């Protein structure tokens, strides 16, 4: 039976949410292929994660545990994943298009001598051929390309976070856990981690319910404080356009778009953002977009569910005082 594999990205025993999203879309693909879903977990002391992966829809888990897999390093991870694939011949192999997933996928595809499509935003099975159709933005989001890999297996793709939704979690899932031994060594890794400096506060933009975003039209660093106040009232994360980031008003972690993060909040509030294609690429999947801009022709209005033609500051300040009143109630 054909298998659709999802690489389960974990660090320090925590599964990256994108892996659950991929289990969701893998389910759709496996149904169309009358196949099964398998999750691949690599790490050291991570067997506790296997039931979680089954709970989110995998029929099977391949588990490789080794000291060399304690933290992510390219070569041991690439060898483990490609050795497994050589043994079990999956039809499809999906990874999150995260920094880790993109790093790993390039090596694995080369070891397997197969095709790899990057940063995919749409996946489906072509009825006539059974091929995986992988659609991705290219040239700065100006075009979309649908890519196929007809003659090589597995068909591999890295998939952007927040494109597919997380499937429902099943209680008492059933499934098979297959433990595999793979020969790895420190020598193969060639790299050792001396230290790790975690980010002070990780900006959890990709998974925020509300994003308050500002662009060049905000006018300055001080003005961003106002948006921060609004964001706090809404328990929202702050987002920004690239021009706002490049102006030094806010750090890169907050950048939304093709070269920043993809977000999918319930509500996206865009203040003074023109809505260039590279920015839209990162936020157009939001459930509801509210845009404030002084230019009637701003492209952001084309995708906004609610457009407000006017000064951002007037709207932001009025919203802040309305929310404060709401809280006092």
């Amino acid at each position, binding site marked *: 039976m054909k298998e659709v594999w999802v690489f389960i990205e974990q660090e320090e025993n925590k599964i990256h949410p994108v892996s659950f999203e991929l289990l969701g879309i893998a389910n759709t693909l496996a149904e169309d292929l009358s196949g099964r879903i398998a999750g691949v977990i690599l790490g050291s002391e991570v067997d506790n994660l296997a039931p979680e992966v089954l709970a989110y829809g995998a029929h099977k888990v391949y588990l490789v545990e080794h000291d060399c897999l304690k933290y992510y390093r390219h070569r041991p991870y690439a060898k483990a994943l490609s050795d497994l694939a050589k043994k079990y011949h999956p039809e499809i192999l999906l990874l999150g298009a995260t920094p*880790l997933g993109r790093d790993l996928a390039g*090596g694995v595809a080369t070891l397997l001598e*197969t095709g*790899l499509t990057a*940063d995919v935003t749409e996946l489906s099975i072509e009825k006539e051929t059974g091929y995986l159709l992988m659609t991705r933005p290219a*040239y700065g989001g100006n075009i979309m*390309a649908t890519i196929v890999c007809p003659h090589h297996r597995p068909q591999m793709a890295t998939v952007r976070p927040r494109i597919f939704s997380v499937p429902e979690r099943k209680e008492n899932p059933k499934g098979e856990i297959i433990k595999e031994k793979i020969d790895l060594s420190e020598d193969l*890794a060639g790299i050792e981690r001396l230290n790790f400096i975690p980010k002070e506060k990780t900006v959890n933009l990709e998974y925020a319910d509300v994003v308050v975003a500002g662009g060049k039209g905000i006018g300055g660093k001080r003005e961003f404080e106002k948006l921060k106040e609004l964001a706090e009232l809404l328990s929202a994360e702050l987002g920004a356009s690239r021009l706002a980031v490049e102006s030094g008003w806010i750090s890169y972690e907050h950048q939304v778009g093709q070269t920043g993060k993809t977000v999918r909040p319930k509500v996206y509030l865009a203040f003074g953002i023109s809505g260039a294609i590279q920015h839209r690429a990162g936020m157009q999947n939001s459930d509801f977009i509210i845009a404030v801009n002084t230019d*009637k022709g701003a492209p952001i209005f084309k995708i906004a569910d609610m457009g407000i*033609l006017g000064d951002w500051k007037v709207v932001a300040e009025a919203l802040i005082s309305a929310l404060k009143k709401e809280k006092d109630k």
Partner: protein
Amino acid sequence: MLNLLVSIKQVPDTTNIRINPETGTLIREGVPSIINPYDLIALSTACKLKQKYGGKIVVITMGPPQARLALKEAVEFGADRIILLSDRKFAGADTLATSYTLAETIKFLEKETPFDLYLFGKQAIDGDTAQVGPGVATRLGIPVVTYVNKIESIDLKEKTIILHRKTERGIEILRAKLPILITCEKELSHVPFVPFSEILKGIQSEPEVFTAEGPVFFERDKLGLKGSPTQVKKVFTPELKKQGSLYDLKEHSLNDVIGKILEILRAKGLL
């Protein structure tokens, strides 16, 4: 002494790209070609390392004949040898075929002197896959460190390097044995101002041209379109979603508009 290899790609400046709305294809006319911005970082980094530790810089690129301009520019940054891989048979390569062509060329060049460090960009701004660096490292059988944002030190005697790598959760500080391949983040280096004398040197230089016929031996069916497992099936311009309502604050009262926003937030369970 450090023997350095930098791999660069010439790309269209995607800020100026326009699309033919009927065919969904790029209008290349009038779009300037530039060195991929991350590859400029790789070049400047190599240049700084050469100044500090001594050594030589070899720069390669695969592309159409006009990509020689990118290599001439690389000379301004201190490249000692520039090589253009150009042949119809290389065209249409996906990342698997690209990494094959580059890796075989590197193996050929290494018969003279092996390299200590290979510098690639984090990604190219047109294809945007970030797959070529890890692909080449895999084919060379050496470790790769992606998203490098700082080189702390190199120990020439021990042949080790200490570097910083950006991950989603923070910064990793890593020690690796040379040789190693790195892909460069923006923060790794400033692109220096190039003095006129160097520009002149660039203008006067010409790259060596390698083709599918030689001097490197290539397996034909691993090159270009033929050697590429992925195929572009369809190219189209992204659809815009339907436009919602627009409230002009000159016509609608601010109060009403704020009320509408609160309504939406409430309906979504956010208040």
